[in-house]
């Protein structure tokens, strides 16, 4: 059952198009990840979904309500954590959460319970009487998370929920998010790739306002698995090695890392699906008289896929030009 439906969403700020024909849908109880580089349009899309700003064209609906025409109905059903937690520094945590509960329409008799529940879920009960301005970044972030949950909304939209948290807290938050799935529908945006593969059921990869891919993390990895990544460890000067590798037909995106103290370099070469150029690489390196220490194929991680899908075409053209 589709809970969130986005069709051809476009948002232009004057000459700049931040969101360009984005379409996707989220099923009830699902966790959808939004992955993309800075400026890709993730935050803008979320702001349109939450009713903060209207789209230039296209439609979006949450729980059957259009986000523009039935904005109030949508807002009753969503919890939203923007990039920076929207907190009032001079209020105590409990007072703030009570305020948010009120403006979200939580009836008086349920408020205490809901505030207590939100405090417990985000593990900040011990800070309930503390003034928000005295909290550390990590705690402030958790207060932000708590306000998104306080009214127990159907749909929860989180913009970079784990930013500013220490590793232990990050694990807790991921655990929390996974626990909320099923009874809640969640959309979260992030830069952190492992987060996506660990918590999300499906991923939307977005770049320059356009959707680059929509699929489960597993499917994405296998879809692009045809392409290989080869890793070599060589005793050679950096620039000549880079040029040599780039010239091999079928090689794209050569990356030579910094030399270690003993002069050995590590380089990675990516190839198109179906091509195995390992023997050519070995032959060319030996031909030049350089010492080859290691040569192996590495399967593409989600990070590679992400970079592959979101890197400029200019980088791809480079090896071709070197020919």
């Amino acid at each position, binding site marked *: 059952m589709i809970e969130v439906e986005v069709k051809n969403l476009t948002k232009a700020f004057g000459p700049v198009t931040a969101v360009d024909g984005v379409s996707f849908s989220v099923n009830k109880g699902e966790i959808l990840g939004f992955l993309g580089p800075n400026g890709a349009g993730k935050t803008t899309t979320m702001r349109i979904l939450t009713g*903060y700003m209207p789209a230039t064209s296209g439609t979006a609906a949450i729980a059957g309500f259009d986000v523009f025409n039935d904005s*109030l109905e949508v807002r009753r059903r969503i919890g939203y954590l923007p990039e920076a937690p929207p907190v009032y520094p001079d209020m105590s945590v409990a007072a703030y959460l009570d305020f*948010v509960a009120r403006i*979200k329409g939580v009836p008086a008799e349920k408020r205490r319970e809901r505030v207590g529940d939100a405090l417990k879920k985000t593990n900040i009960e011990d800070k309930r009487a503390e003034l928000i301005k005295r909290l550390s970044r990590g705690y402030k972030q958790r207060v932000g998370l708590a306000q998104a949950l306080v009214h127990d909304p159907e749909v929860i939209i989180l913009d970079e929920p784990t930013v500013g948290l220490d590793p232990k807290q990050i694990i807790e938050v991921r655990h929390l998010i996974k626990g909320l799935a099923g009874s809640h529908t969640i959309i979260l945006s992030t830069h952190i790739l492992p987060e996506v593969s660990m918590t999300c059921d499906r991923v939307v990869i977005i770049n320059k306002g356009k959707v680059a891919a929509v699929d489960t993390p597993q499917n994405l990895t296998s879809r692009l698995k045809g392409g290989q990544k080869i890793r070599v460890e060589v005793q050679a000067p950096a620039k000549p090695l880079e040029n040599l590798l780039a010239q091999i037909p079928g090689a794209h995106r050569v990356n030579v890392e910094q030399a270690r103290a003993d002069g050995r370099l590590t380089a990675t070469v990516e190839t198109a699906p179906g091509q195995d150029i390992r023997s050519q690489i070995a032959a060319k390196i030996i031909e030049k008289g350089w010492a080859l220490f290691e040569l192996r194929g590495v399967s593409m991680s989600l990070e590679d896929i992400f970079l592959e899908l979101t890197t400029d075409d200019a980088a791809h053209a480079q090896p071709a030009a070197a020919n």
Partner: protein
Amino acid sequence: MQGFHAMYRKEMGHYFVSPIAYIVVGVFLILSAFFFDVILSDVIQQSFAMQMQGMPPEIDMPGEVLRAFFGILSTLVLFITPMLTMGIYAEERKRGTMELLMTSPITEIEIVLGKFLASLTLYAIMLLPTAGCVIFLYLHSDPMPPWRLVLAAYAGLLLLGGSLLALGTFISSLTENQLIAAVLTFAAFLIVWVLDIGRNTGGDVTNALHYLSVVGHYQDFTRGIVDTSALIYYVSFIFLFVFLTVRSVDSMRWRRA
């Protein structure tokens, strides 16, 4: 209406912990007490001077004191309200809490009315201690002036203050920067003030401008006259700027993030 109530409570709570609110109210009360003293002494001296000259003291001393006192109060209010209104919207936008409010099931009207009525409440609380001066005057006057005089004067002061708060709040909603809001509000108020000063020179244009003057309509209130046209003027003024503030808040959705 729960949203309105929540906004109002939050705003009032913030005023109680805000240093600016305390400073502004404190300065206002100190100055008003000081001026009351000056006015009182001045009027008493005048009446003595007239007695010395053999003229019967027909001046209505308490009335004169009240009129001058409330006149000074209106000037103080004019200078002080920009400080009270400058942060009302600017703070929310700077902190990012405007995003919270606008993605919650609370209407712009609830937000604007909650904030406006809270500022009006603070203003009324600020005016309360001035009644001390007035009561002092009354207790020492024989015969006591009619109470309606004071009620009319305070009514005028509340309407004037309400109008200035509405205007200042509107200006605050136009910018993220408190300082710019304060400066623009001061400028607006000074223009308003100057319009009033020009009124005595006569002529049709100045008379028309005087009608528009926020301070101009206040004068009668200080004499105990509650003019319906002045009431309508103030209520319309307040409605206008509250309405404009609602539009301005709505337009925040269309401004670049």
